[in-house]
């Protein structure tokens, strides 16, 4: 890689050991992907829940945090993805003191590094959205795909260590979706059945993701009637990234870089479209069907809920009571939780027997240990991303729209 004078001084250790580690790590990754040089980034976003970090990761962070302030502080706004635990609700979820203790250590270390603890995977809705062409070092696949596609920002999936490295150096290797030539559409899908709710948008993302199945594919989705809102694209993108490891999609007439189908393919003729019809949706749902089963836990998360989703959950629960044998969990960002508290939404959800957790996203929160401690197995959600992830943690997941999820939570079985 071509290095600037400043990058060479970081590599030589003149900016301290944290920045030296960071740029070494970035060069190793950049050379693996044939990056020609570095590109400055506007923000870094770190996925670093304590379940993933483990003792080894937290101890490593504490080592950086013990350095003198000028050597350890990040150089650009650096924010965090959901945490492993919400101190206000963890006891109700039967998470342990040991989990809370390691979480507190990780937070203290990040704060010493100058990281802003936003604890959110919907920063594009709540913190500072990127603008078209802005280079970023974002973690959380759902954040990357939304910002790349809907907003036209430029980021790869940056894992926690790499995003922290970008925070420390203020740059990232120029490869993958930082480069124009990787951003052209590579596959074409034509939607013949319009999604009706957020679960359907997630299902559509899952269907396209399974077909794409590569970080390096850029699906183009045409045939949609009307313009989906931010929550719809949030669920679509999160599922597409989860099922397919996809980081960028185009929707002609909707997303930032594709006014037309021709734009989406960078001026080349679009390939023949793979149709997606009602049968594809039915098959997708059928893979998770469990009608009549007892439901142990209903989860609204992955991604965290917007204010409008919070209001919808509250509305659907009004005058009702979650079944005693079922838990209902809603995960949102600290900003939205604060708004929901102020507007009475939290009180309405918790008054009906639900739990509102802030700064977490369920699957990043010791899901296996929560299942064992609470006796959970059958999980119902309107998040396609969550049904894809959670089976590996020993759950039996089912996908349904928000209304059916809440009706089932009240009934205590999958309706």
């Amino acid at each position, binding site marked *: 890689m071509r290095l600037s004078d400043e990058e060479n001084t970081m590599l030589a250790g003149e900016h301290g050991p944290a920045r030296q580690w960071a740029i070494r790590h970035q060069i190793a990754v950049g050379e693996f992907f044939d990056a020609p040089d570095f590109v400055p980034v506007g923000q870094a976003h770190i996925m670093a829940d304590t379940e*993933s970090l483990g003792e080894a990761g937290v101890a490593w962070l504490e080592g950086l945090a013990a350095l003198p302030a000028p050597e350890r502080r990040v150089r650009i706004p650096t924010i965090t993805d959901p945490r492993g635990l919400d101190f206000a609700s963890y006891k109700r979820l039967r998470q342990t003191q040991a989990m809370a203790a390691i979480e507190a250590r990780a937070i203290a270390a990040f704060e010493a590094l100058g990281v802003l603890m936003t604890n959110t995977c919907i920063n594009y809705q709540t913190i500072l959205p990127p603008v078209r062409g802005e280079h970023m070092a974002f973690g959380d696949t759902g954040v990357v795909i939304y910002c790349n596609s809907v907003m036209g920002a430029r980021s790869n999936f940056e894992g*926690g*260590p790499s995003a922290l490295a970008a925070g420390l150096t203020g740059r990232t290797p120029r490869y993958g979706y930082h480069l124009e030539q990787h951003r052209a559409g590579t596959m074409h899908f034509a939607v013949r059945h319009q999604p009706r709710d957020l679960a359907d948008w997630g299902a559509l993302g899952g269907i396209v993701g399974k077909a794409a199945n590569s*970080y390096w594919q850029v699906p183009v989705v045409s045939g949609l009637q009307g313009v989906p809102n931010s929550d719809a694209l949030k669920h679509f993108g999160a599922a597409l990234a989860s099922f397919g490891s996809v980081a960028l999609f185009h929707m002609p007439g909707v997303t930032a870089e594709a006014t037309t189908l021709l734009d989406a393919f960078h001026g080349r003729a679009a390939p023949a479209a793979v149709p997606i019809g009602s049968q594809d949706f039915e098959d997708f749902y059928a893979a998770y069907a469990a009608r009549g089963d007892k439901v142990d836990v209903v989860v609204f998360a992955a991604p965290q809920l917007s204010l409008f989703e919070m209001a919808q959950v509250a509305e659907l629960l009004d005058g009702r009571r979650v079944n005693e044998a079922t838990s209902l969990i809603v995960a949102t960002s600290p900003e939205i939780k604060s708004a929901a508290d102020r507007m009475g939404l939290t009180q309405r959800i918790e008054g009906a027997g639900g739990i509102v957790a802030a700064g977490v996203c369920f699957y990043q929160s010791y899901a296996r240990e929560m299942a064992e401690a609470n006796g959970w197995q059958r999980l119902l959600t309107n998040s396609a991303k969550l049904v894809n992830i959670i089976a590996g943690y020993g759950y039996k997941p089912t996908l349904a729209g928000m209304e059916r999820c809440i009706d089932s939570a009240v009934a205590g079985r999958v309706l």
Partner: protein
Amino acid sequence: MPITLKCHKGIGPAVTGRALVAADNFSARYDLDRGKGVFSRSAHKLFGQSYVGQVLVLVTAKGGVASAWMLREMAARGMAPKAIVFDRTNTILAQGAAFAELTLVDRFEAGDPTKLIRTGDELEIEPDKGLVTILNRD
């Protein structure tokens, strides 16, 4: 004469080890019980099998960004694979391998390595040279 496969220059140290191969994908978060060291997602082709100390040969990396931390954490407990060989990785596993100092290679000249390497093969992986050698076959 062992079979030598040319790939892109990789990450991590040169290692030798036994191959565990599947035409399937990989995510440390989605697919593994990291405590027990086995594949735990029932739909995975290696479900129930131990990955500890094996050279995993899989098609691609998928899923979330957590694997970037998890590889180092697994290595610290002595519960990591010896190396990972992909047809094509995503960015997360490459970053995670760099952080964990775990051996990882991809982009083979002869195509998808899950079709070239068999479970049980003894592999020598040289990331600096971009070479994977199947030691037990001619």
